[in-house]
């Protein structure tokens, strides 16, 4: 027997909110199962003899169709003078859903900005590669590259610090140019 | 009464006492003692059977017989119904092996197929589905342990004293059973058309008996279908309208 409480939560069969769907009736061909039999086997055989899509990984590299939208390892961009572009505004760290970005800000030695990141670490093991940091950055300092085969021998090795992130930029700047020059130029003529 | 008949009687009595001790009698003790007694009885019992034929066949016989007997004891003494069923299945396999050794291929295979393959799996099925939360207390003990042991002793005692008396080489009244000659084997057990002959016999001379048995089973099947339909009648009717 149902208790009162469950009865109230159970929908009656004549409830107007229920949309009763009729199963479509199969024709003679469908009911004979032969059509499905032939269809299944021909599909399988077609794929069986088709060209294979596998990329033989270490020897062949996977071609990424559009590196500018791929979400791989992070990099910290440099500006035209080779300095880190980041202004330590913490927007990326705030946007990060995995809380994997850790920034220590300090007063900038340069005159064109107030702060710069004294240390900037990303825990690549915690990162979920969602690209929110890239979206949030007001000066396009952090970007996701098209490097997909990230690996390391220890957990410590996978925590990327500022130097490593900048070196990723040096490695990938030819393959994937910086998206904008936003944040450049402001006070570009200033001295150290 | 000759000497070995004394030994056989002793073995059977010991076995009965051991079995009684081993049966789960609801809090009764002495299962270890019973096991020891049972093993001693089995040893004594087997020691009185010899001179059957070649060592391979003999060895196979003793191994299979031991499996069958030990498994049978396990089937009645286990507390867990699932284990009882498994022991019973093992006992059936041992029996089937003995039958195969004796040349009764069809009966051996039919035993495995019908009992071990179909009926026992149904047992297991019911046991597992019916008692998912554990064993009921009434299933864990044997009722009428004394009567069971007495019935067992009567059966095994009569059979083993009778057959054991015949097989004993020292028994002057009966000549020892000789292994069958090659001609006898060729005419009976090793006949390539053994099963065909069995079929001829069953569906020729004994046709009426087979048909009566078949009709009985059919009646049972119909009865089961009727009983099942009583319980699920309403829902079943509702479904039939759409089909």
């Amino acid at each position, binding site marked *: 027997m149902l208790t009162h409480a469950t009865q109230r939560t159970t929908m*009656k069969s004549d409830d107007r909110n229920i949309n009763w769907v009729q199963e479509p009736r199969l024709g003679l061909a469908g009911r004979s199962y032969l059509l499905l039999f032939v269809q299944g*086997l021909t599909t399988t055989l077609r794929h069986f003899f088709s060209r294979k899509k596998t990329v033989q990984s270490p020897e062949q590299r996977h071609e990424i169709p559009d590196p500018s939208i791929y979400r791989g390892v992070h990099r910290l961009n440099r500006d035209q003078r080779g300095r880190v572009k980041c202004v330590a505004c913490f927007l990326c760290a705030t946007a990060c859903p995995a809380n994997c970005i850790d920034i220590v800000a300090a007063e900038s030695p340069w005159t064109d900005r107030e702060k710069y990141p004294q240390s900037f670490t990303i825990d690549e093991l915690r990162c979920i590669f969602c690209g929110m940091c890239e979206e949030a950055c007001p000066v396009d300092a952090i970007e996701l590259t098209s490097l997909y085969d990230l690996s390391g021998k220890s957990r410590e090795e996978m925590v990327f610090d500022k130097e490593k992130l900048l070196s990723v930029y040096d490695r990938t700047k030819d393959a994937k140019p910086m998206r904008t020059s936003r944040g450049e130029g402001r006070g570009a003529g200033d001295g150290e | 009464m000759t000497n070995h008949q004394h030994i056989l009687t002793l073995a059977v009595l010991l076995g009965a006492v051991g079995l009684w001790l081993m049966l789960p009698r609801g809090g009764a003790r002495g299962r270890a003692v019973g096991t020891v007694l049972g093993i001693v009885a089995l040893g004594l019992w087997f020691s009185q059977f010899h001179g059957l034929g070649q060592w*391979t066949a003999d060895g196979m016989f003793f191994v299979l017989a031991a499996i069958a007997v030990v498994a049978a004891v396990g089937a009645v003494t286990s507390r867990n119904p699932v284990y009882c069923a498994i022991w019973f299945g093992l006992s059936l396999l041992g029996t089937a092996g003995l039958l195969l050794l004796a040349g009764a291929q069809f009966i051996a295979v039919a035993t*495995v197929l019908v009992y071990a393959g*179909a009926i026992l799996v149904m047992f*297991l099925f019911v046991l597992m589905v019916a008692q998912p939360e554990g064993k009921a207390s009434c299933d864990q003990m044997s009722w009428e342990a004394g009567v069971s042991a007495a019935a067992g002793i009567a059966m095994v005692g009569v059979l083993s004293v009778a057959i054991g008396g015949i097989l004993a080489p020292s028994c002057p009244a009966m000549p020892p059973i000789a292994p069958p000659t090659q001609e006898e084997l060729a005419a009976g057990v090793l006949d390539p058309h053994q099963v065909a002959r069995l079929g001829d016999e069953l569906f020729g001379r004994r046709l009426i008996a087979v048909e009566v048995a078949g009709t009985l089973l059919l009646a049972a099947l119909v009865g089961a279908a009727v009983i099942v339909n009583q319980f699920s009648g309403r829902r079943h009717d509702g479904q039939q309208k759409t089909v």
Partner: protein
Amino acid sequence: MPPVLESLLKIAVLVGGLMTAAAYLVLVERWIAAWVQDRLGPNRVGVPLTKIRLFGLGQPVADGVKFLTKGEFTPGQVDKILYFVAPVAIFVAAMAAFAVVPLGSVVLPASWGFDGPVRLAVAPGLDVGMLYIFAVGSVAVYGVVLGGWASNNKYSFFGAVRSSAQLISYELPLGLGILGVILATGSLRLDNIIVEQARSGTWNVFVQPLGFVVFCVAAFAEAGRLPFDLPEAEQELVGGYHTEYLGVKLMLFMVSEFLHMILAAFLIVILFLGGWHFWGLTGSAEAVSWPVALLRVVVLLAKVMGVILFFMLARWSWPRFRYDQLMEVAWKVMIPWGLINVVVVATWMEYGVQLARPWNLSAAQGMAIVGWGVLLLCWLATTIIDPTASGNRPRRDLSVNDNCSE
């Protein structure tokens, strides 16, 4: 050669061959799965410690080593004894069934100490060959049931319950499919069935197509292959009855599955596809000299491999049945078809020669025409009557409330 030694030799060859075959069939299965999915499949592992790849032929060895060296962990909740017994039971049963599978007979020189032809089967003297396979196959259910029950896990248990019901149900159409062949041959012995087909030159599939269909479907179900792999439907039951197993015990379950598949393929070939017979190649005498015997073994194994390939392709071709559909296919389609097949074959065996004479046909031609006609009629009738139409869709007049209130 003493008979004991001969038997031991045959057993050694059989066990070794089957284990190797099972291991390599895993590789073949993975290849085919990959090719059907536009991938390449395992192609790396070759000779260890070198760069030689051999198309991945070292993979089974690597798999075996992995299974064997895995930590032996026993889950805490299991029934210790039955947990160990189950994989052994299923493996022994799967292996034992091959004892009566014949590969032909060969006449060896008398100088080697053989008198009479050597039958290439472990237990050639067993007159009840087909029934023996049935009996041993029914014991294999224990492994599944016990494995599922001893694991003490609801998914394992569901798998075991499903499996036992499925295996018991499909044993009936399996038997009915075979019955026609046995009626036509007059023997339960597998080598007699092959010789009969070789002698007449007509494989049983040509004259009993209905029996072939019933047997094939039932064999798929008994082997637990898709589209009948309900016992271990991964998407619903994690892994079915062997969810809680790992290491060597899991390997025993896996190997047994492949052995079941090999056995099903052997039976399909032997019963319906002529065994070692091929027109103009192998002759039809029962015992032959060794080159012909070798050719026969090759033909038989090639056919078996073909059937196994079909098993593997079928896995990726059709969706799995729902459980009630599975049961309905067994009880409402396959068993009636099997019964019809038995009746048709028995009638034809009795009156076929007289019926075929006025049409100027041989008995085999007449049987073929009748067989295919019956298959067509049965299929058509099933299509029109549609006994498997499901009545378990949600319906307005049969809601949950109405049922519970009674």
